[in-house]
């Protein structure tokens, strides 16, 4: 019983490409997701939106053919000329109506996939009969159970990444490293971030560098310093102090103290309250011995 439904997987669709530019008659359009079901010679292109329908983009989606997708989009289909190509705009429930209205004008063949507490299809039925059948009734979902595979997109501000960045920095300190580049920290925090384009890379690197430089003079003073570089991606975090102790209990105390400083940094930059959920517990944990498997001879 998986926590997140996977109806597309169940009918044979597999994620083939992310952020894939595709050349069409009117120019180029960058598809957020391309899924293919090779067994049925079908593809589904998904555009994730917040309620806006851009005229030019929608028109180009409307023009897209399966042959365009195969020949310019790094996708394989068994018989492109006869393939079933579907298009869906994925939106939150509150944006369904406005998206439907926008699409009716510029991309009338496209459907709208509502992603909320239920997964629902609106607009013209999907061209793939299996998809049509599968989405003929709403599918229950739990938004808290969405797999966190991609933490960033082009619009993500650096402070939203403070937690994962702090965690990656903690990892580097535990590993006893002397230094770690900003780009390595970001890569550890969110895989694949360079794939969102050079402009985004540069901005995110600069913002994270600034954030950590600031922290180095506050919460992380004496623990790290940040050295700039001509290429922002190679700016480096120098690690000055790591938790050293002679006993495991002492080491754990030192690591918890370090963690506390990293959490203070995260709370300051993200502006989140310490207790995200009202019932959250803060236990005074102890260094209990835990029986291990060693038995004597």
């Amino acid at each position: 019983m998986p926590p997140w439904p996977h109806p597309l997987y169940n009918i044979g669709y597999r994620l083939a490409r992310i952020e894939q530019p595709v050349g069409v008659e009117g120019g180029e359009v960058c598809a957020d997701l391309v899924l293919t079901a090779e067994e049925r010679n079908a593809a589904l292109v998904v555009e994730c939106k917040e309620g806006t329908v851009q005229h030019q983009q929608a028109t180009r989606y409307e023009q897209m053919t399966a042959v365009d997708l195969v020949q310019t989009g790094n996708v394989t289909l068994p018989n492109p000329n006869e393939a079933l190509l579907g298009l869906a705009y994925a939106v939150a429930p509150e944006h369904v109506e406005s998206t439907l209205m926008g699409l009716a004008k510029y991309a009338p063949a496209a459907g709208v996939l509502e992603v909320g507490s239920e997964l629902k299809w609106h607009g013209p039925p999907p061209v793939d009969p299996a998809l049509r059948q599968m989405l003929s009734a709403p599918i229950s979902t739990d938004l808290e159970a969405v797999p966190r595979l991609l933490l960033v997109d082009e619009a993500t501000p650096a402070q939203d990444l403070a937690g994962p960045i702090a965690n990656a920095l903690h990892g580097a300190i535990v590993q006893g490293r002397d230094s770690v580049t900003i780009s390595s920290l970001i890569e550890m925090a969110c895989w694949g971030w360079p794939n969102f384009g050079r402009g985004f890379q540069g901005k995110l690197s600069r913002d994270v560098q600034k954030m950590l430089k600031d922290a180095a003079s506050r919460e992380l003073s004496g623990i790290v310093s940040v050295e700039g570089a001509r290429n922002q991606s190679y700016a480096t975090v120098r690690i000055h102090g790591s938790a050293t102790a002679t006993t495991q209990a002492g080491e754990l105390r030192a690591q918890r103290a370090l963690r506390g400083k990293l959490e203070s940094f995260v709370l300051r930059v993200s502006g989140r309250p310490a207790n995200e959920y009202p019932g959250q517990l803060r236990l005074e944990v102890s260094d209990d011995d835990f029986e291990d498997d060693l038995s004597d001879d």
Partner: protein
Amino acid sequence: MTIDRQVMQRDLAAHLAREEGLDLLPQSAHADLKSYIVEAHPADSLQTASRMLSEGGERADVKVQETDDPSLFLLMATVLNEGQEEEVGFWVDVANPRFWLLHTKTNASPAGTALRRLVGHSPRLDTAWLPRNQLRSVQSRFKPFGFRLGFDERPFYRREVDMLELEEPTHKLNVEHAGVGAERIYQLLEANELTRRAMAVAEVAFWKSSGDGTQLMRLTRQGRLRSTGQSLDSHLQAARAVVRSYERFIVNLELAFGLQFSGDDSGGILEGRPLSIQTQKPEGFQFQSLVERLVSGIEPFRILGTVDWRAEEVAWVEAVDLHTGAPLRMDLTPTWMRVYLGHGLCGNTLARFITNLQRAYDASLSYFDEASDDLFAQEAQAGEALPT
């Protein structure tokens, strides 16, 4: 004197025969022969493994000595055992650069202390962690002769809680069985709802016959193979079989779950998937306290992290594996969990997490994903059904 594998073989064989061995390493008179698996990440060559051993030994204050065989070392340490100083020695075999075998003739307790010291001072070294089905899979390749269960969910209780007030039917279980009826006894216990959740296998026993007699061996979930009998060949072959199986298991974990987003300006693809685990919610304690304890750095997990409560029973966790420094991302709920492992990170981290979850939370946990293949199933462990 040349020190090589033939010398090691004579030394260990003499110990099995309770004869005076070569005076190269300390030994305890009545100790069984034991072999431990140590995982060295990311050693991919003999040179790397040798350097990691040498550097780890220096940090842990254990003496590492080269032999005439470039993939064989002697390791010696002095440890405190029950208030007494005790000498410990290992033959360290790094022929497999990533998965080492350490053979010892000293007692388990000081040997374990020395090993923990070595591993504890080297973020890139770890012992093996064999989940239940891994152990049972190894056992099934020999003649089974018993098992030991060790389940203890007390790490998740607060100290002041009176255990008698708790609702859990079994919060601690230690059972040892010896005999050829092992499988039937195991199934009997597993079928019972009072014990099903607590069926955490801590050790399996099995035997093998050869011209040198019968070799009785015990393998623990932390990768210690202990052996009684006269046949060194049987012991070394079993140790090799365990390493082979464990290596396949870890490499497959990394292949299946190492998340990687690859691509360029012309689009990208996502490879790997998170490890998803289905569990049964324990009756006896609050899930929130469980999560807080889980990521507080306590043994046996050694995971220190920050919890972001998304709902009453949904926690998003950013944590660090204190042993290796690997960053871990987890989604935790009482009935399912997800663990995200970045590409290039060590599968041993996942194996440790799973093994310890079985030992302290739910021994009957199961792995699932969209493909519905079970990497923890016995067949997959044996390598017949590898994930694709």
